[in-house]
């Protein structure tokens, strides 16, 4: 039941925000929204502290710490099925934390239609939490698509029309089209899997646990796996399918960017780990080298393109492409170490990218530009913003002591034994990351002051505490990641077992 509340609180909160503005003015929705996300955060932390996530894995069947199941559309064997394990818990906590930050960082930025803004933001977060919890493939697709609509409105209605860019509506539409079209391909794959399963057992079911271990011909398995992979690769984003991301990020409002980079991209990695690999282990194993090289291309291509950006938000957006490339490598390497690295990388990237986007938003609010050529010398014009930005930048480049380092190190170390070439090429991405992060800092904060030298309004205490909390979490992830690793270890072991099972099956005959 508590799982249902995790989804319902943001949805009800969103409705209250919408109606609240009509009766009391714009301050009420902000407090309602912050309150709902805080409640979700507390609930999820309580689940973490009180629950036991190190359940043994008997025979490779996944175990759930909590489960909630009701019939929904029995005609198709569809149920409203939620379940929680270590991995989903970690991501729910991340969603709640970044969701809270997204609400707080738009406190001053959004001054028009505040109620409707928070309705969209909270519904999006509610749907994302649902995606992390669901175990029914129909419900999964349902929520996967449902989270797009509010995001579309966030970008299209409260976004920026960057000069030179093609506008927020273009960006929002492109985002929606890419993700929805790939989502439909996944729906076709889901239905294909369900009918294959029905032919074998005579039972029509969308339940994850029923569909696990469906045996099928290698060709069918490959095509179905590809259907899932395309949807997740678009969302991740993987390189040939990434072009919606920089557009969407540069036009989105700050909260939208935080949400998009910090949370929405993680749904893709989660989808691969939870659905694509366990449902199609053999095809995934065959496909792993391709996927890993796609990840490497993402790391290098994203890193190189990051240099070329003048728009500070596009820069951070392209760096996300590079960071998610590491995630792709780790997921398809499939060793336990690499998979654990993926957990840390997901959390750390969510927080560091979220922090950087918040900082971009703060700079934009004060300077009304995101063009780095017009910045320069900001160190002299702010008191606390530049050092905080430096911390997030070095975290993002993978400096030891921060979570990103742990994540990338574990991924690369875990991949080495399996695919040395991938590891070597991907490691150069770390150098690229160091260069573009330092360029970001150098071009914005150092150098000659551009234009007006008057000092700018520094961070308010609301903004400062928000960023300090994120910094603290990043340090925690970097210095003592054990609690996080312990929580997700069972899930990752199970996925590793699936890989090994597939590899053994290949080797046996």
């Amino acid at each position, binding site marked *: 039941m508590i799982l249902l509340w995790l989804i319902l609180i943001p949805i009800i909160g969103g409705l209250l925000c919408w109606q609240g503005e009509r009766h009391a003015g714009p301050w009420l929705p902000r407090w309602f929204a912050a309150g709902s996300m805080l409640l979700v955060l507390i609930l999820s932390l309580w689940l973490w502290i009180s629950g036991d996530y190190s359940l043994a894995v008997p025979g490779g069947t996944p175990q759930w710490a909590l489960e909630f199941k009701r019939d929904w*559309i029995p005609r198709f064997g569809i149920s409203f099925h939620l379940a929680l394990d270590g991995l989903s818990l970690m991501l729910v906590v991340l969603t709640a934390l970044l969701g809270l930050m997204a609400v707080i960082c738009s406190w001053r930025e959004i001054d028009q*239609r505040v109620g409707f803004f928070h309705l969209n933001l909270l519904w999006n977060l509610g749907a994302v939490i649902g995606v992390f919890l669901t175990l029914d493939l129909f419900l999964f697709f349902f929520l996967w698509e449902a989270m797009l*609509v509010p995001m579309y409105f966030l970008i299209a209605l409260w976004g920026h029309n960057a000069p030179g860019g093609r506008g927020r509506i273009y960006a929002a539409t492109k985002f929606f089209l890419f993700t929805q079209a790939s989502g439909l391909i996944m729906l076709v794959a889901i239905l294909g899997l369900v009918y294959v399963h029905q032919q074998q057992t005579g039972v029509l079911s969308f339940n994850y646990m029923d569909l696990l271990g469906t045996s099928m011909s290698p060709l069918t398995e490959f095509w179905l796996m590809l259907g899932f992979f395309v949807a997740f690769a678009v969302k991740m984003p993987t390189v040939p399918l990434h072009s919606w991301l920089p557009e969407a990020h540069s036009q989105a409002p700050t909260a939208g960017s935080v949400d998009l980079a910090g949370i929405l991209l993680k749904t893709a990695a989660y989808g691969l780990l939870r659905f694509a690999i366990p449902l199609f282990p053999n095809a995934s194993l065959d496909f792993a080298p391709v996927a890993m090289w796609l990840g490497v291309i993402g790391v290098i291509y994203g890193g190189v393109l990051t240099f070329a950006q003048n728009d500070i938000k596009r820069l951070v957006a392209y760096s996300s492409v590079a960071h998610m490339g590491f995630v792709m490598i780790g997921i398809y390497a499939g060793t336990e170490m690499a998979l654990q690295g993926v957990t840390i990388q997901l959390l750390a990237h969510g927080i560091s990218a979220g922090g950087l986007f918040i900082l971009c938003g703060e700079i934009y609010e004060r300077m009304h530009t995101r063009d780095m050529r017009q910045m320069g010398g900001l160190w002299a014009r702010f008191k606390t913003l530049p050092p905080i930005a430096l911390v997030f930048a070095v975290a993002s480049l993978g400096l030891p002591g921060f979570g990103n380092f742990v994540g990338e190190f574990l991924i690369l170390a875990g991949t080495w034994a399996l695919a040395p070439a991938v590891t070597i090429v991907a490691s150069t991405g770390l150098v690229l990351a160091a260069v573009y992060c330092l360029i970001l800092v150098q071009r914005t904060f150092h150098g000659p002051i551009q234009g007006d030298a008057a000092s700018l309004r520094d961070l308010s205490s609301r903004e400062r505490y928000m960023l300090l909390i994120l910094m603290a979490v990043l340090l925690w992830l970097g210095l003592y990641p054990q609690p996080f690793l312990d929580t997700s270890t069972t899930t990752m072991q199970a996925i590793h077992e699936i890989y090994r099972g597939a590899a053994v099956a290949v080797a046996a005959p």
Partner: protein
Amino acid sequence: MSFTQAQLLALLPILIVGATALAVMTAIAVRRHHRATATIAVVGLNLALIACLLVAQLEPQQVTPLLRVDGYACFYMALILITTLATATLSHAYLENDRRNPEEYYLLLVIAAMGGLVMVCAEHLATLFIGVELLSIPLYGMIGFPIGERRSLEASLKYLVLSASASAFLLFGLALIYAQTGALGYAELGAATSQLSANSPYLLVGGAMLLVGLGFKLSLVPFHLWTPDVFEGAPAPTMLFLATASKVAVFAALTRYFAEAGDYHFDRLLDVLSGIAILSILVGSLLALAQKNLKRLMAYSSITHFGYCLVALIAGGELAVEAVGVYLLTYVVTALGAFGVISLMSSPHHERDADSIHDYRGLFWDRPYLTSTMIVAMFSLAGVPLTAGFIGKFYVLAAGIDARLWWLVGTVVLGSAIGLYYYLRVIIAMFLTERGIHRTTAPLDWAQRAGGIVILLITVLMFWLGVYPQPLIELIRAAGLH
């Protein structure tokens, strides 16, 4: 031939609608009064709807060789009656201040509805033809109802000419089928065709001509050319009827014909139908991309949607009838929402209906509830989850995948992706404010009107069907062809 009591009872919905037509005609002859005429029509349609629900409880009845009143027929009769009721309610708001005799509109509407009822009960090719004509002929009048308008008259004439030629095709097709098999009833046809080879030329050509005739009414590509012009020229309530009740009746009749007269036997016919479906989906979506006029956009969108529905029909098997039912129902609910808003925004004394996307710019911030209906309807047409349209699309994909029609499934996915683009354009327009250009066409007190209530109910229904479709699915399974 004598009727038993049970047979008369089964015919009750059709009889009541016929009586209503007579009553409306008499009332107009006695005294012209808009509201009274509309009330008579609405009461009659409601009685027919109640009768329909009663008949649904009874055993299926074969009434003469011509008509069969079973659960399937009752479901579609109810659907057509509900659509007609919504049309009547919305046309009352639309025609209210029209000084030129608005009363006859209801007469035409009720007769057209009767044609629809006859079609969905048709068990015989003669009844099918009578139903098609009874449905189409009043529509000429309904399209050209604002006789002062050049565009309406032009649309009416266009529909008259094309519809008449389509009927000629249909008739020729029936004649060819009769020439080969000597039968017109579906059951005898089914028995006869199963013994003939799948390549018997008369039957194949006859079947193809029948498809041409019905394809015109469903505006499937390549028989779609009349649709955008007629939709644009027709008054908004007529467009609503044309896009929903009329097409649903034809499609329901086509589905019954396919399932009972053994047309799944003809692979070549199915190939042709697949081609028509693919073309309808692609041409409809691609042409809709460039539209600035909402009525034309909806016209192309309806072409696409009946293409999707055709995919379910082609899939055949146990799932097909169910999928067609679900798809038609969700489409009707959605279209009622979208066209209903257009009707409420329009009124015949303005030069034209509120049919440009421009008319809806920034409307959300002034009239949130009316616009919410439009937004939900657009998402539903696009097949986004949480709305009824998604359940329909899910069914079509499920039927297609179950039958392994990969080309058609791929086209559905492609069409949906393209469709999303133009639906989003309409949606986002409603949020964009530009001061000074806003025009409100309809009176602002719409919420007090019956039309407003209908619209709100439809919005609730669109959500409810999208979130909890199980009751609907059970209903439609019960109303299958057994």
